[in-house]
């Protein structure tokens, strides 16, 4: 049905792209065999996403050629790529929020008679796709009400419905829970066996190594190597990506001193998916919050910061209850919050790096109503060096920075407030390996200096390595607390509870 035609052999020759004079992709040559799973790895800013976007027709290459089965093709817009069977599944997602799953899957290609949609016919094709993929999605749900993982499945379904022969996926597992990841990896394998070509961009090297046939490494916009996955190890890949050896070990936090006081506690927090959370964090302690997507981890952090108002329960700092909690009051009590999404909740993308970093501590550097610019520049420079933000210019819009540098800027912004309690949600999502190791180091250093940290992460390895204790939530309630060194399987089992073991 959907993959009736064979996938093409793709050849990329001398492709380059620059944005306002800065080249992000330089003379890249790449061959992709039909039906292969081809991994693309590299640090943020290495040009992986740009390459993917060129193949998807979203971005036009400045020079170089694309050939499909020996014939040269020109992708001026996404529909040209779609016509060649290339479907791009991007990080952001491209669904129409207010439409149903079924409507999105067949978006613009609904079966119709004289302009009237024939949903029953679409429904039948939908069921065939479900059978192929093994997804469990209700075609009648509105997509904006679905969890991110399921939304991504809808995008994959849509690609298949359009007869995609080449699926280009940008960080598809970044937003998924462990269980969903495993499902996706299995599906990628199944689709490739059925003849679909898969291009996979991912920061998770184990994943890429596990599923890809061949892996291409990019560094600073140039191709480093394309090799069989079987000949590579995580270590060899990192060496190629970074151009040098790097210590991939997680930073280890110091033990919490016995006399460290409890700084932050919550009792019976409730709202929406959060169904009564108790927690205590001591000075210098890193508490990990784990659980499946939708278990109420992020929501708990938001309640602690007053970003949402709890319908019940209390938050205490140094034993004093914070009443009518709001972000302002939380900040006054010394709480900082690095939210889950940089783009939606963290940064003002069009404004400069320094303005963003200075934003939450503006009142600290003013004369009357006027911002003290010199003091601000000094403060921003100091804290930027501390967290190692690599930006060409501090007055450039922050959206021009790589994900890792944007994330560091978010940390910098809160460090300028000198907080005593740090709440971080997915501190290393969409961040390259060097930045990730740096952020881990930063968090453990902050804890060493006495900060109380609550960290949410979907990566259980990260959570177990970084935290002193991991509190696992299920259905908005704590279901278990595990010390450092607990086996990953035990934590995952707790997250899933009785509803089945992960496979």
């Amino acid at each position, binding site marked *: 049905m959907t993959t009736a035609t064979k996938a093409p052999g793709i050849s990329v020759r001398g492709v380059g792209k620059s*944005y306002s004079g*800065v080249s992000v992709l330089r003379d890249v040559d790449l061959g992709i065999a039909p039906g292969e799973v081809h991994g693309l790895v590299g640090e943020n800013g290495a040009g992986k996403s740009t390459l993917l976007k060129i193949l998807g027709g979203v971005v036009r290459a400045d020079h170089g050629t694309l050939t499909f089965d020996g014939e040269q093709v020109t992708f001026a817009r996404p529909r040209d790529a779609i016509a060649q069977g290339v479907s791009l599944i991007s990080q952001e997602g491209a669904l129409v929020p207010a439409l149903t799953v079924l409507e999105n899957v067949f978006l613009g290609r609904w079966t119709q008679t004289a302009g009237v949609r024939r949903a029953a016919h679409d429904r039948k094709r939908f069921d065939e796709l479900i059978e192929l993929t093994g997804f469990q999605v209700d075609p009648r749900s509105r997509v904006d009400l679905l969890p991110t993982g399921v939304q991504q499945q809808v995008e994959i379904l849509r690609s298949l419905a359009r007869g995609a022969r080449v699926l280009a996926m940008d960080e598809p597992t970044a937003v998924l829970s462990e269980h969903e990841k495993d499902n996706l990896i299995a599906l990628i394998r199944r689709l490739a066996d059925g003849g679909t070509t898969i291009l996979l961009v991912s920061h998770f090297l184990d994943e890429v190594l596990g599923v890809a046939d061949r892996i291409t490494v990019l560094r600073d916009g140039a191709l480093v190597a394309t090799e069989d996955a079987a000949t590579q190890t995580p270590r060899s890949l990192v060496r190629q990506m970074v151009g040098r050896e790097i210590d991939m070990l997680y930073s280890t936090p110091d033990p919490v001193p016995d006399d460290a006081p409890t700084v932050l506690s919550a009792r019976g927090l409730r709202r929406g998916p959060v169904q009564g959370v108790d927690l205590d964090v001591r000075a210098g302690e890193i508490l990990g919050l784990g659980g499946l997507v939708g278990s109420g981890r992020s929501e708990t952090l938001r309640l602690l910061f007053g970003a949402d108002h709890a319908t019940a329960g209390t938050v205490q700092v140094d034993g004093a209850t914070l009443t009518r909690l709001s*972000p302002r009051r939380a900040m006054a009590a010394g709480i900082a*919050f690095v939210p889950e999404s940089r783009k939606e909740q963290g940064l003002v993308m069009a404004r400069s790096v320094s303005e963003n970093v200075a934003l*939450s501590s*503006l009142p600290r550097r003013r004369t009357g109503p006027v*911002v003290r610019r010199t003091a601000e520049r000094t403060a921003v420079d100091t804290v930027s060096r501390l967290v190692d933000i690599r930006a060409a210019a501090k007055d450039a819009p922050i959206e021009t920075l790589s994900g890792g540098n944007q994330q560091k800027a978010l940390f910098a912004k809160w460090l300028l407030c000198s907080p005593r309690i740090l709440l971080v949600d997915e501190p290393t999502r969409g961040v390259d390996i060097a930045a990730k190791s*740096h952020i881990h*180091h930063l968090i453990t250093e902050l804890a060493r200096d006495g900060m109380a940290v609550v960290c949410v992460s979907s990566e259980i390895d990260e959570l177990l390595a970084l935290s002193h204790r991991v509190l696992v939530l299920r259905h908005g309630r704590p279901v278990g607390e595990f010390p450092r060194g607990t086996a990953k399987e035990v934590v995952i089992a707790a997250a899933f509870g009785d509803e089945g073991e992960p496979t």
Partner: protein
Amino acid sequence: MTVDAATPAEPSTQSPHPATGSTGSRRAIRIRDYGILVALIAIVIALSVSTDTFLTRSNLINLLDQCTVVGLLAAGATVCILSGVFDLTSSATLAVSAIVGVEIMRLTNVPVGFGAAVAAGAVLGFVTGMIVVRSGINSFIATLATSIIYRGVAVVVTAGAIVYPLETQTENFGALTWPSVFGLTSATVMFVAVVVAIGLLISTTTFGRRVYAVGGNLEAARLSGIRVGSVHVAAYVISGVCSALAGLILASRAGSGQSTMATGAELTAIAAAVIGGTSILGGEGAIWRGVVGAFLLTLIGNGFNLLGWDTIYQQVLQGCLILFAVTTDRWLRRRSR
């Protein structure tokens, strides 16, 4: 801060991108940033060359005076748009403030009347802001409804008639049309002073930073501890004061106020802001841009007069200009991404 030890990775000598071509990107930014000024200068030169009358003292004084009303409204509109909201009440606020000013003047004297008009503008702006923030309705709709109410209030207060100051006050009521420094009208001097003050407020103060942050990303601003509602209310208050001042200029010129004053000017003000290059999505732009936009629109009208062109085409050209400005902005933006 006690995090001095946290520098684990290598020194930050590596820049994320090679430095090649950064001058090219900087040039693109320049054009994008100041393209509107280039357009303005081009029109000024064209008019200077093609007419004898443009570069005369009286015409320039007249031109600046004509620019004051739209310029003030555009400055107010820009503050609102920067913070991510629209103010469609500005022309209705203008009318109500001017009428309130005249009515109070009749009971007291001219300065108190002027003060009352400004106070009325601030109060109306505050009310508009509270309505937008508290109702949570999209600002475009909320201020559209509010503007209809304000217009209605203006009709009720005046019973649809023209309101005049007392006979003894008529002369002083025209004070804003009097010549002042460099022969500029008092209205022009006031306009320049107000616009400079608002420009400084937006570009140098913590309030200005908050305005940009709230307009650029409301949720990020909120999670940074900014009271986004207060910022929006303050933006409406500023816009209200600008409207009241514009209303005083119009009333001072006419020697009277009425409920139909400046109908539709709120859209001209938004147009001026956009022509200047302020993003309609909020968070990007500047006060001077709104003023330049207003000046450009006034200049076109002036040019039509001086060149003896039929003014019935004026609106067609203005509309084209708006489309051109926004398209160019969009194009430059996309290229620089």
